[in-house]
């Protein structure tokens, strides 16, 4: 017994492919479901929006937005959503809530903080709990991002944290923006120490703070220079009235995407995703059957580039069976 109002995965996938945004809620219900029947339907859905079915990569720009709590990510996203809408782009936001799952349940409060016109059918916001997997994206989030990228112009994955979450997001997104506020000294240390990967775009919020903000900006610029991360753009923004730097940030995100070998990045993302799913399913024992993580990665690199994640998972399953 799964969700009563479920439409077929194939049909939902086809609707997304046709850029029918109203298919998004039901598509996500399916992708998030762990019921056996729903899993098969979700595979069918993802098949409909795979590069093989589309003849190209899903066109939407998948952007990871991550940063420590309290830096103003939600206010920033409100402004970004408004700017994208001004540029007539449709936007989906997948807000991943960090709340712990000690009770199994969670409080998903983040959509509350992202302002959007509820009558605007081209903005879609969905919140999910970070899930049981340690420090990771909700298992369904990566699949959801891929599916939504077929229909929406922009797909945002919003996560909270620093040091680990942006690595996870980097595996799922085309462009990663890390959001900081002035005086986030620890982040600067993370960057310098190499604990944190250098993001594609670094966003410094609360630019309205004047001297403090200018000081923080100079520090970050110096750090990036020292790290030889010349390609990372640094944007200073303010989300309070009068907002500033938002259009420039959107331009910077666009510029990163324009300079990207998208098929290569997406292909890498799909392969990592498939391997993660495999490990979640079969654990270390499964990984050993594949000859270890590195061997598995190398083997994946030799597979057909058009395979979607479920197909790659099936291939890994078969390979593990063979080897053991």
């Amino acid at each position, binding site marked *: 017994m799964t969700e*009563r109002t479920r439409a077929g995965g194939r049909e939902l996938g086809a609707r997304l492919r046709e850029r029918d945004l109203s298919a998004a*809620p039901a598509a996500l*219900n399916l992708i*998030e479901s762990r019921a056996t029947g729903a899993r098969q339907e979700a595979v069918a859905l993802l098949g409909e929006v795979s590069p093989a079915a589309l003849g190209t990569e899903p066109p939407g720009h998948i952007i990871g937005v991550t940063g420590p709590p309290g830096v103003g990510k939600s206010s920033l996203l409100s402004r970004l959503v408004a700017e994208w809408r001004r540029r007539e782009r449709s936007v989906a936001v997948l807000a991943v809530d960090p709340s712990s799952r*000690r009770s199994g349940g969670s409080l*998903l409060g983040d959509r509350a903080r992202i302002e959007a016109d*509820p009558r605007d059918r081209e903005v879609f916001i969905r*919140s999910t*709990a970070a899930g049981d997997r340690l420090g990771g994206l909700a298992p369904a989030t990566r699949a959801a991002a891929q599916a939504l990228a077929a229909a929406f112009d922009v797909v945002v994955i919003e996560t909270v944290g620093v040091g680990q979450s942006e690595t996870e997001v980097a595996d799922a997104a085309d462009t990663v923006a890390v959001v900081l506020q002035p005086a986030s000294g620890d982040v600067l240390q993370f960057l310098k120490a190499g604990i944190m990967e250098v993001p594609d775009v670094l966003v410094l919020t609360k630019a309205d703070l004047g001297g403090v903000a200018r000081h923080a900006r100079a520090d970050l610029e110096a750090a990036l220079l020292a790290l030889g991360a010349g390609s990372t753009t640094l944007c200073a923004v303010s989300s309070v009235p009068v907002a500033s730097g938002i259009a420039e940030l959107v331009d910077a995100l666009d510029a990163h995407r324009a300079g990207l070998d998208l098929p290569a990045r997406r292909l890498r993302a799909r392969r990592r995703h498939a391997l993660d799913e495999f490990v979640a399913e079969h654990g270390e024992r499964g990984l050993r059957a594949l000859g270890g993580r590195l061997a598995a990665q190398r083997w994946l690199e030799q597979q057909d580039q058009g395979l979607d994640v479920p197909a790659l998972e099936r291939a890994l399953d078969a390979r593990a069976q063979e080897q053991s």
Partner: protein
Amino acid sequence: MPDSPSPRLPEPDRPWMMRTYAGHSDARRSNELYRRNLEKGQTGLSIAFDLPTQTGYDPDHELAKGEVGKVGVSIAHEGDMATLLDQIPLDQMNTSMTINATAAWLLALYVVAAERQGVDEKELQGTTQNDILKEYLSRGTYAFPPGPSMRLIADTIAYTVEHIPKWNPINICSYHLQEAGATPVQEIAFTMSNAIAVLDAVKHRLGGRESDLMGSVFGRISFFVNAGVRFIEEHAKLRAMSVLWDELGRERYGVEDEKHRRLRYGVQVNSLGLTEAQPENNVYRIALEALAVTLGRSARARAIQLPAWNEALGLPRPWDQQWSLRLQQILAYETDLLEYPDVFEGSKVMEGLVSELLDGAREEMHRVAELGGAVEAVDYMKAALVESHRKRWQRIESGDLVVVGMNRFTSTEPSPLTAGSDGGILVVDPEVEAEQRAAVQRWRADRDQAAVDETLGQLAAIARDDEENIMPATIAAARAGATTGEWAQTLREVFGEYRAPTGVGEAVAAPTQELAELREEVERLSEALGRRLKFMVGKPGLDGHSNGAEQIAVRARDAGMDVVYEGIRLTPAQIANSAAQEGVHIVGLSILSGSHRELIPAVMDAMREAGVGDVPVVVGGIIPDADAESLRQAGIAAVYTPKDWNLNAMMRDIIVLVAERHGVETPVGA
């Protein structure tokens, strides 16, 4: 034999100011009510405004739908204010206005109404509540972000100290903190921390004249407190606050005049502890709570308003309010209460209680200070309150905290008090909203538009300049005929809007046996559904009383559900849209303002339009029986009122409802 000194005062004290928190519908109807109340011996006015007025929207704004004239009177412009105060001499009246985000505006309207009566602002006496931090923490009628809100408060204080010297520009409220679940220690500490934040902000605005003015500023700050039924400890709380206030004046602000350092407070006794079950018992509770704030002379209230016995049922009628006023009059005029000096002086028990509370409060104030003060610590304080409330509720559910008639001694005869055709409450005429909508549109059409535009332009310019005081431009706009919504919108454009923290993030309950069972049921159902049971808690309309919704959200999370809670003040379209996008299995709506008859059907319509008409909806709030029946007929799956205090039972209902909707079997007993 030498005469022993008389234990009596040479002269009995004068009674405190007696008020009734009143106002509903429009200015004309409320004016009639006020004049009747004054005839009955009420000595001051306490104006209740409706939610659109409190949050800065005109009656014809989308968010005002269903809320106009409900929890108070609708005041959209100076014409309304003049009608409201018609034939009430403002040079003699002492008026308390429960108004916060829009306090500067309503004070300006009051000043203009006085002008029309030929009364100079110097003569005016009264209080604007004007305490924004507790709006973020509990009551929810904020409009602007913290920074600009603190500036508006500081501006009204700086203005009144010079121009309306007998006015209390701010009534710092511990009242709503207790309603939100604060323990006495939290109530004292958070209130004092709030006062510090306000005083620091004013100090900055006095620009160089602080040594002249700080004493009178300190002396004009008053408090609005709550008193619960544990009336001995509650009295100790007020004595502790007096000690801290005096200390703060002396040490932090260098206030030399002892009179300026005296704690002055008004009070509305507890409505948190009032029950819907056997509502007549509330009369005793109110009487005992009134003792908490009057018994000891050295910490006696300056002004008292008592709730009515039926506030957990709906809006009180004039007769209900009269009954409450008579309680005050009996206490002041029949008993010997006012004939003695402080009756607790020298009491070891009282001293011990006070010092215990002081220790706890100082520690808690220290924590808030370390976080950077009350403004910065809003998130911390909000989370702490939600947590205290959760613990209190668990004690009620377990029976450790006895509430007579609710969780103990529950067998009862039918109450004749609620047997009448009105169900024992006041119902606002549904025509009021349409009338007010038309009236404000006529007002806008008839005024000098150029003058309004000019004054609002000035207001925006002043708002952008942090060094200017907002009051003169606000009074000019009021005089020119601007509306409440226009004043607030002008400032929203400059200051931006704000959503307060919901406080429901962190703490997870220690699992009780019952909770563990619920979790198991949620787990089972989630597996059958394929996804975790997802529950949306929504608060439609302008009502900001979110304590109930927060407790439901927290308990649902503790029971293992994924809970979407977006905070207060949502339109039906927003709720429907979120329900659809989030793919929730069930929606719970909370409304306490009495606007459920308009808002619930509007949410249902919007949900059908968004394609989620088949998602079950439950409703909680202050909902009379007759309305509950018609809501159920309109398709609401369940209606909960304050009678339904067992949250676990509610969680079980939710599990069963979702299971039924999806054809999943539930275990026996669920």
